[in-house]
């Protein structure tokens, strides 16, 4: 089976979407061929379109942007719609990570992808909404099922199984295995470290430029 992993983060490196796809890859047997593709800008190249056309399943992974799909990825999806790239037996799956704690906040983005599938006659296979995605790219690599990523590992493992069997799954929503207050505190400490690294004070986070 040829499976296209489509990284829809604007970041070419060190993205949570990339980290999730890397983890997902570990759940597939070696008999499958994974195509690593990136939708990092507003355009889909002819080479990528050609590779996509050879795949048996498409897995989109991307960050939640303002309750939806990032604008550059919407542009890519619109281009694929124009190309009429449908295949009645190719399942499309989605993995959305959001900086908020609750994975359920990714439900609208998954719905947009599902609506795109309906419009383009590509079967929707279901997806995962992942909360607490802010730190995923930086988390240490542990054995699957260990540490704060344990619930995410479980969801990815189940999704991989569905993909290999070309089955549909209900959208599922998970969060990192940390208390919400601890995730919130960690994220806010992170903003303060970042702004100080840029030579500013923590109070500048609240600036209101004219």
């Amino acid at each position, binding site marked *: 089976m040829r499976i296209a992993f489509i990284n829809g983060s604007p970041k070419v490196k060190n993205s949570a979407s990339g980290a999730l796809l890397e983890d997902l890859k570990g759940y597939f047997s070696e008999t499958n061929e994974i195509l690593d593709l990136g939708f990092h800008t507003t355009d889909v190249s002819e080479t990528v379109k050609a590779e996509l056309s050879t795949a048996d399943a498409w897995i989109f992974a991307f960050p939640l942007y*303002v309750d939806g799909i990032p604008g550059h990825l919407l542009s890519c999806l619109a281009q694929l719609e124009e190309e009429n790239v449908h295949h009645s037996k190719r399942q499309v799956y989605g993995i959305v990570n959001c900086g908020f704690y609750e994975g359920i906040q990714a439900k*609208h983005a998954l719905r947009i992808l599902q609506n795109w599938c309906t419009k383009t006659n590509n079967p929707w296979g279901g997806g995962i909404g992942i909360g607490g995605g802010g730190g995923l790219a930086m988390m240490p690599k542990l054995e699957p099922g260990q540490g704060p990523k344990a619930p995410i590992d479980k969801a990815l493992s189940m999704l991989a199984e569905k993909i290999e069997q070309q089955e549909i799954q209900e959208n599922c929503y998970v969060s990192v295995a940390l208390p919400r207050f601890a995730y919130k505190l960690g994220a806010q400490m992170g903003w303060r470290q970042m*702004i100080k690294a*840029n030579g500013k004070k923590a109070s500048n986070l609240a600036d209101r430029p004219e």
Partner: protein
Amino acid sequence: MKLIITDLENFNIPIEGEYKIISPKGSIHHCIGCFGCWVKTPGKCVIHDGYENTGIDMGKCSELILVSKCYYGSLSPFVKMVQDRAISYIHPDFVIRKGEMHHKRRYQNVISLSAHFYGEAITETEKETAREILEANADNYDGKVKAVHFYKCAEELEGITL
């Protein structure tokens, strides 16, 4: 002030009161997820292409009006890219609102949010998605939804006043 973000290049819909329009004038760069608008130049996007001040404009508006072609229940790529580039309207810190994590306010204005979606054959599911996203946007901006409208084509918008 009414802030209008639209993908219509020739926007000629009448508008009552003070307003500002953000429409396609030159190419827009998409958000690159750098968070520079929160930690390098707080309140302002770091990409200088003429679309970097939307977060500041949002801080001055009473109404945010989105006029966009509907793409799968979402805004169009252009309008969404403008919206993505304006997350500096909110503060990076989190608050719990309606039981969910959202961002803290940067400004004190309460935005009244409207959307006018146009497009051929917008399905009921897409309309439902669009309505739900606008509600979610209002929760994140700590604002409120005023109205969501759908039109079969952009020409139908000529009969309205914003």
